[in-house]
């Protein structure tokens, strides 16, 4: 589809094959902007999710009272529909009627213009994603922690290693393969983020939070430029595949270095 000109006037007809769409795409600054936002979003959100999830998993790893309660509560967000989350955060960020701004003002921190101002909007979207997806990393890393060989840990403790040393030099390396997989899954998913942002900001203000998926959707279904939408989508596929392969190769290389 991306190589032709699909017209929606008369049913769906395919035009002659051309490279026009690809030429337009490469010169389309909105496409590059959307890509820039998407990559920034993925890097910040996934990094923070990983470290928060890892921290929470470490806290809940050893038997602790109310552990079951925390586990269930922490995993609820990822089971919510992205659509519901989008609406939910629109209420939370609401400047006059939401719960956050009023409280912040009362303790003297002013009113962040969450969704009204580009930088804040990007931050809002990232916070929403962290809220939604930290649970997945938390659960998978917790599962990994529970499979840790006990003897290695006991040996380290007998040697008098501090808690922090144990984490960095024993737990972290053992969890590396799982971490690579989990981050991979999450990263790939984050690239295709759609529903939440669509409902939270609609890509705005302006185009500050238009992810590439959103951009393809707008082009294809709101401007009815179906073949251009398909071109964007395909370009995204190529880029995500390239990044995913590069990530896996780097991760494998680093892991071999650790083992060696």
């Amino acid at each position, binding site marked *: 589809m991306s190589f032709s000109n699909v017209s929606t006037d008369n049913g769906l007809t395919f035009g002659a094959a051309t490279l026009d769409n690809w030429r337009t795409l490469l010169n389309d600054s909105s496409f590059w902007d959307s890509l820039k936002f998407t990559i920034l979003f993925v890097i910040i959100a996934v990094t923070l999710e990983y470290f928060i999830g890892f921290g929470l998993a470490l806290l809940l790893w050893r038997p602790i009272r109310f552990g079951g309660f*925390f586990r269930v509560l922490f995993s*609820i967000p990822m089971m919510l529909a992205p659509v519901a989350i989008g609406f939910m955060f629109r209420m939370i960020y609401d400047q006059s*009627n939401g719960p956050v701004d009023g409280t912040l003002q009362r303790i003297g921190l002013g009113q962040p213009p969450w969704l009204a101002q580009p930088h804040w909007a990007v931050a809002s979207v990232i916070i929403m994603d962290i809220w939604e997806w930290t649970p997945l990393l938390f659960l998978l890393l917790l*599962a*990994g922690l529970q499979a840790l060989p006990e003897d290695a840990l006991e040996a380290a403790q007998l040697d008098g290693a501090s808690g922090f040393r144990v984490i960095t030099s024993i737990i972290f390396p053992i969890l590396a393969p799982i971490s690579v997989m989990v981050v991979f899954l999450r990263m790939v998913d984050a690239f295709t983020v759609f529903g939440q942002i669509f409902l939270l900001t609609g890509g705005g203000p302006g185009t500050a939070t238009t992810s590439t*998926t959103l951009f393809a959707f707008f082009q294809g279904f709101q401007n009815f430029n179906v073949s251009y939408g398909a071109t964007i989508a395909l370009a995204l596929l190529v880029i995500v595949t390239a990044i995913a392969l590069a990530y896996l190769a780097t991760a494998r290389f680093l892991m071999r270095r650790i083992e060696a």
Partner: protein
Amino acid sequence: MNRTQNWRYIPLVAWSLLVALPLYWVLITAFKDTTSIYNGARWLPWVDFHPTASAWHDILGGANSVYGPLYHSLVIATVSTLIALVLGSMAGYGLARYRLKALWFKNNDIAFWIVSQRIMPPVVVVLAFFILYKNLGLLDTIPGMIIVYTGFTLPLTTWFMESYFKQVPIDLEEAAYIDGASRMVVFLRVALPLVTPGLIATFLLAFSFAWNEFLFAVMLTSENATTLPIVIAVQQGQLGTSWWNICAISLISIAPMTIVAIVLQKRLVTGLLGGALK
């Protein structure tokens, strides 16, 4: 670890509050009306505002009844997840237990090929599906949606099930073969029961995908196969946004998942493990 580590509760409670605040807000908003939503933040029912059940009347029998979409969602998510689970566990078993070779493609290559579907952003194919379904007459039908969701969850189920089967010690199966059991019997009676936790975890992940999916639902359905996420989205209509309805429907849509998660939380943690170990 016999030292008391009560400090651990500080970050745990802090994160709990962050998780719970939006959920609490949804819960109380489901019982609000226009006046109690739009005049500043109101936190406590009966103190700050008068709770009303009008949203619940509206969506459970009034003009905006959700029974239709709820039924579509249940059928589509359940059927597509079950199909994906049956096919996925068979494919996963095959990948885990047989040495396959198609040209230069070996087991690991096939597994990566299958999971690489997850790399593809759904928006890439949604347009193609739209055109395809339009020509096939599958637009806005329940079978159409089941096919799409099965296709999308199948890589996930295959991949997860493969790693669970790989964890099962092969001796048990070999013992069954010696006793004269056929392959199908070994698969059904020996291997499958051993991976039940994995099966549950995979079911949950696949089900929550199909239950919550938005992009395909919004593109491919309009009336006869709309799912709950779509109903949530259309509450933002020309007459203003019905926040209370959105919240009430959201609560309905997380209820089943939360109950299942509470029941299965211990098994889910051990079950997810295998998939992560891949």
